[in-house]
């Protein structure tokens, strides 16, 4: 990584400087204007996500944030990453989060206790971190220019070639990790049902007594609906 960075600095040092001279911040290109506009929408949706008091609305504003980021990836010519972002984040992660909100019986309306008591300390930390990061990043990359012309850097062909030529072993390891996560999620979800069945069989447990009471005498694993009623 450092070798590549130094090589590119050695190779394109003068061109970078001339690019910074020819491309000022006061004469933005069309791609930059689009990037800034979509970035403002994305950042605003992210702010609403972390500050709104309606929990379901937070998940829906998260959709706007993730979709805006997908558009930013498209503007950076990383089209495969953009479609993967739409498929996985907007398609599955947000749906999982909404399922989680529904299953934990989040209130539909405004919940007054969505923020904890240390929100001012959190605000201080976040603003300080943002100021420091933005200052450092702007100071470091003020004159760096991304050349977006020519063939796309993140087309499906380029990404697939590099992924299956140079990154095959991490890719396969990632599939094993996904399998482990799948098995782990199933085990975590089955745990309470097994506890209810065991409690119905032998040991009286105070927490699962209503669950066994809702299905008296059957001895089987209770249905999900009755279990939900029991733990309420």
């Amino acid at each position: 990584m450092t070798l590549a960075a130094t090589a590119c600095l050695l190779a394109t040092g003068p061109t970078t400087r001339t690019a910074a001279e020819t491309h000022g911040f006061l004469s933005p290109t069309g791609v930059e204007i689009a990037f800034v506009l979509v970035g403002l929408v994305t950042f605003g949706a992210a702010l609403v996500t972390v500050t709104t008091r309606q929990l379901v609305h937070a998940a829906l504003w998260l959709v706007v944030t993730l979709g805006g980021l997908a558009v930013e990836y498209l503007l950076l010519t990383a089209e495969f990453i953009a479609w993967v972002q739409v498929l996985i984040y907007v398609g599955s992660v947000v749906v999982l989060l909404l399922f989680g909100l529904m299953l934990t019986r989040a209130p539909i309306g405004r919940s007054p206790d969505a923020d904890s008591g240390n929100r001012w300390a959190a605000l201080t930390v976040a603003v300080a971190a943002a100021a420091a990061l933005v200052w450092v990043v702007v100071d470091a990359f003020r004159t760096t220019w991304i050349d977006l012309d020519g063939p796309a850097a993140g087309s499906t062909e380029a990404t697939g070639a590099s992924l299956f030529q140079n990154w095959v072993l991490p890719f396969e390891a990632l599939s094993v990790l996904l399998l482990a996560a799948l098995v782990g999620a199933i085990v975590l979800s089955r745990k309470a049902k097994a506890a209810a069945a065991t409690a119905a069989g032998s040991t009286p447990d105070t927490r699962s007594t209503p669950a066994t009471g809702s299905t008296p005498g059957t001895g089987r694993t209770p249905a999900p609906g009755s279990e939900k009623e029991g733990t309420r």
Partner: protein
Amino acid sequence: MHLAYPAVLSALLFCTGLYGVLARRNAILVLMSVELMLNAVNLNLVAFDVWLSKTAEETLHSGQALTLFTIAIAAAEIGIGLAIVLAVHRNRGTADIDKLRDTAERHDPDGTDHDALTAEQSGEAQKAEATA
């Protein structure tokens, strides 16, 4: 495009996620903020990969490959995290992370009785988990 634009946007999104993690009380909202932070890192990786792949002679597209890995790991993380939150909600009846204080240190003046009581309660909870 100037590299400063995606870098600044990524820094702002990261700090927004940081605020959400620190200030939110519901565990699922904390998971959403973690997703925001991961996406900020992804944007940084993509922007720097596009910059370096155009300026360097030879590139491995390491930024985009790492972005794909991060997205997959985030999907796994959200699955496991939601399973844990649902298990906690099923056992305790709440997903409020301010109320999950079983491992917190108590600062009561007569701390021994409370400690013994909480130890007994946590032992009971552990027994419930062990039977599961």
